C-alpha cells in the first residue's frame, strides 16, 4: 500500500553520528618521561601500546580491528577511557556480542613504555543460533510466530534471520541476510525474501505479497541513503463479497519491479519524543523500468522540526507530502496509492478514510499532503517523574491534510489548486505513551473539521498506535 502507512516493523537503524568518531590527527608524540608508574596519569600523556580482545570464538579479528583502532589515538587517560567506551559501544552495535567489558592496565613486558597502557576487551559471543517463539492473537485470527537467527554467520557480523508465522488464516514468512562492510557498520547490504498477507478493511481489500528485495544502506556526510530494488508478486482480492466494484476491478495478480531511493537527515535526539532537532526523509520509487506490470514514479517526503519551549514542553511541526505519477498511460494500482487519515496521521478521521471512495471502500489517492502542529508537555503535576511518568506526554495538536486523485494533463497549477481545496483538518488533545524507542500509543480527544462527504470521521475519543506519526 502507499507510503503513508508503514507495512513492516523494520528495525530502525542506529544513529551513526552519535557514535561516529572524528578523525584525530595521527601525530605521534612519544614523550619519554621517566615517571613512576604509580603516579596519577590523569592529565599526563599516555600511549596505548596494545589492544587485546579476549573471548573471540568464530569472529574474525580483522573485523574488530576497524572498530577499536581509534583507541590507539588516545593521548591521555580520560581520552583512553572515552575512546574505549566508544569502542565498546561500537562492538556491541555489531550485534554479535552478548557482553563487552573493558580493562585498562599499564603495559608490561620487554617493550613496555613507562607511560604505556594496554586496553583489553573481554567479549562474550552470542550463540551461533538463537530462536524465538511467540503466539499472537489478533482480530479473528491467532498465529504462531517462529523466529530463527544466525548472528555472525561467517564471523564478520553477517546475520541471517528467518521468521515464519503460521496463522489460522494465513501463513507468512521472511528470510533475510544482512552483511555490513567491515569497519563501516552503517554501510550494509541486505537481501530479503518474504511472503506477507495484509487485510485492509477500509478498502475491503486483501493483499498477498511474495517478493525478493536487495537493499544497500550507506551514510554520506550527514545524510543516510538507502538504495533498494524490490520484485514483488502481488495478489489482490476482495475481502468480502460486498466489496465495491471499484475494488473488485483491482483484483488479480500483478508483478512490480521497482527501484527506490531514500535519503534522510535526522538530527533529533529521540525518535519518539524528540525535544530538539529535525528530520527530513525523501523517498522516491521508480517502478516499471526493470520489468513487471506496474510502472509509475512515486515521490514522498516527510519533514519534522522540534523546538524546546518553557517548562520541558516541546513544539513540533511536521509536514508530509507525496505524489504518484503513472507512466505509460497505465492506471496506477490501488496498492501503490497513498492513504491518509487515522489516529497517527490526520487525527479525528477514520483509519485511511479520507478522499476518493466508492460504496464505502476507500480507494486512495495519487497526491496528498498533511501537516501537523503539536505541543507536547509532560503530564500535569508530573507524576512518576524521572521514571515511569517519562513514558507519557500530553499533547495538543492541530492536523490538516488532503488526498486526491490528479487528472494528469491539467498542469501543475490545477494540481496545486486541487490539493488546496476541501482541506480536512482537526484539533484536539490527548495522552501519548512511548513503547520502547520504536512505537507509540495515543489516546486523543479529536474534533474533526473540514469534513467532506464520504469521509469517515471519529468524533471524540480516538485510540491509535503507530511507528510513524504526524
Amino acid at each position, binding site marked *: 500500500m502507499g507510503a503513508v502507512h508503514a507495512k513492516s516493523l523494520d528495525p530502525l537503524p542506529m544513529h551513526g553520528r552519535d557514535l561516529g568518531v572524528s578523525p584525530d590527527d595521527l601525530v605521534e608524540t612519544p614523550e619519554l618521561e621517566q615517571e613512576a608508574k604509580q603516579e596519577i596519569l590523569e592529565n599526563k600523556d599516555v600511549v596505548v601500546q596494545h589492544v587485546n580482545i579476549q573471548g573471540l570464538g568464530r569472529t574474525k579479528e580483522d573485523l574488530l580491528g576497524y572498530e577499536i583502532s581509534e583507541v590507539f589515538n588516545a593521548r591521555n587517560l580520560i581520552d583512553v577511557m572515552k575512546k574505549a567506551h566508544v569502542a565498546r559501544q561500537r562492538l556491541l552495535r555489531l550485534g554479535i556480542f552478548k557482553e563487552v567489558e573493558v580493562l585498562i592496565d599499564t603495559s608490561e613486558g620487554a617493550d613496555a613504555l613507562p607511560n604505556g597502557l594496554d586496553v583489553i576487551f573481554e567479549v562474550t559471543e552470542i550463540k551461533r543460533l538463537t530462536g524465538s517463539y511467540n503466539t499472537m492473537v489478533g482480530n479473528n485470527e491467532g498465529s504462531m510466530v517462529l523466529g530463527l537467527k544466525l548472528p555472525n554467520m561467517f564471523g564478520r557480523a553477517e546475520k541471517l534471520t528467518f521468521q515464519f508465522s503460521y496463522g489460522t488464516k494465513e501463513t507468512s514468512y521472511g528470510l533475510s541476510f544482512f552483511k555490513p562492510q567491515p569497519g563501516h557498520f552503517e554501510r550494509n547490504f541486505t537481501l530479503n525474501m518474504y511472503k506477507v498477507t495484509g487485510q485492509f478493511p477500509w478498502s475491503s481489500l486483501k493483499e498477498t505479497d511474495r517478493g525478493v528485495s536487495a537493499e544497500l544502506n550507506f551514510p554520506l556526510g550527514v545524510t543516510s541513503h538507502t538504495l533498494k530494488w524490490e520484485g514483488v*508478486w502481488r495478489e489482490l482480492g476482495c475481502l468480502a*463479497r460486498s466489496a465495491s466494484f471499484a475494488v473488485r476491478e483491482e*483484483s*488479480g495478480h*500483478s*508483478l512490480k519491479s521497482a527501484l527506490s531511493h531514500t535519503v534522510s537527515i535526522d538530527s533529533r535526539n529521540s525518535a519518539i519524543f524528540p525535544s530538539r532537532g529535525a528530520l527530513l526523509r525523501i523517498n522516491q520509487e521508480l517502478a516499471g523500468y526493470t*520489468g*513487471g506490470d506496474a510502472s509509475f514514479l512515486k515521490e514522498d517526503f516527510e519533514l519534522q522540526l522540534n523546538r524546546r519551549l518553557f517548562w520541558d514542553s516541546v513544539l513540533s511541526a511536521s509536514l508530509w507530502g507525496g505524489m504518484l505519477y503513472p507512466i505509460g498511460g497505465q492506471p496506477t494500482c490501488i496498492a501503490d496509492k497513498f492513504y491518509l487519515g487515522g489516529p497517527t496521521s490526520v487525527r479525528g478521521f477514520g483509519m485511511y478514510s479520507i478522499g476518493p471512495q466508492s460504496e464505502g471502500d476507500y480507494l486512495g489517492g495519487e497526491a496528498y499532503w498533511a501537516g501537523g502542529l503539536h505541543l507536547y508537555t509532560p503530564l500535569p503535576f508530573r507524576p512518576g517523574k524521572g521514571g515511569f511518568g517519562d513514558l507519557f506526554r500530553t499533547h495538543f495538536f492541530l492536523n490538516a491534510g488532503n488526498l486526491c486523485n490528479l487528472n494528469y494533463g491539467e498542469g501543475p497549477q490545477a494540481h496545486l489548486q486541487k490539493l488546496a481545496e476541501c482541506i480536512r483538518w482537526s484539533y484536539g488533545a490527548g495522552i501519548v505513551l512511548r513503547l520502547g524507542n520504536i512505537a507509540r500509543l495515543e489516546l486523543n480527544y479529536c474534533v474533526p473539521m473540514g469534513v467532506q462527504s464520504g469521509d469517515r470521521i471519529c468524533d471524540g475519543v480516538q485510540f491509535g498506535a503507530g511507528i510513524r506519526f504526524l
Partner: protein
Amino acid sequence: MSLAAEAFVSQIAAAEPWPENATLYQPLKEDQILLSDCASSLAVQAYLRMCGLPVQVVGRANAEYMSPSGKIPFIHVGKQVVSELGPIVQFTKAKGHSLSDGLDDVQRAEMKAYMELVNNMLLTAELYIQWCDNATAAEISRPRYSSPYSRPLSYILAYQKQWEVRRKMNAIGWGGKTLEQVYEDVSQCCQALSQRLGTQPYFFNKQPTELDALVFGHLFTILTTPLTNTELAERIKSYSNLLSFCRRIEQTYFEDKSS
C-alpha cells in the same frame, strides 16, 4: 448474507428494471480467453439475447479474479455482480425475465438435468483437454492463459492453474482417463443431446430456453475454436441436427443484430 437480507436484495433486484449499462466481463477475447471460458461466456450472452436483455461485453485480463465465484463470466448489473449461467438465470427471473415459464414440471426437471449433463460432461471434457492434454496445455492453454502477465509470474500462474485443474480431475475420477475416453464421453453427451433434440428447432419445441443457450454456447465454441487437432469438433460434426441447431441460434440471435 442472511435470508432476510437476501430476500430484501432480490426484492430490490425485482423492483429495478434491467439497466442499459449492464456489462458482461470475460477474459481478453483475442489473446487470453480459453475454450471453456469462452463457451460459458457465449452461453450467457446467448441467454441474455434470448431474453432480449442488452449487455455490453467487456474483456478484462483479471476477469477470473474479479468474479465473485472465480468463474467466468459474470455480469455487473446496477450494483450487483452475478457469475455463471445458473445464478444469472435466477437473477433475471427475479427481474421478471424467464425463458422456462412455459414448461411443465417434468419438462423443467428434464431441462435442468440436461443443463447439468452439459456442465458435467462437456465443460469437464473441455477443461480436461485444455489442461490435462499435454500438447494442448503447452501450445494453447498455458501461453494464452498467462499472456497478460510478465515473465516469471506468467509461468507461475499458468502452472498453478494447470495443477488446480488436474487436482480437480483426480477428485472427480477423470484423472485416470485417456484422451480417447474423454472424446468418447463427449460423443456420448452429444448423442444424448442429439436424441433429446430430435427434429425440433429447440430442445423444448418452439421456444428457446436456458438449456438451448448453454448447449449453443458450448457446441458453437467447440466448433469455431481451433485446437491442436480437430477431433473434438469432429465428434460434434457427426450429429447433423446439433449443427443445424447451432446455425439456427447463431442466425436468429447473433447475426441479424450485428449486421
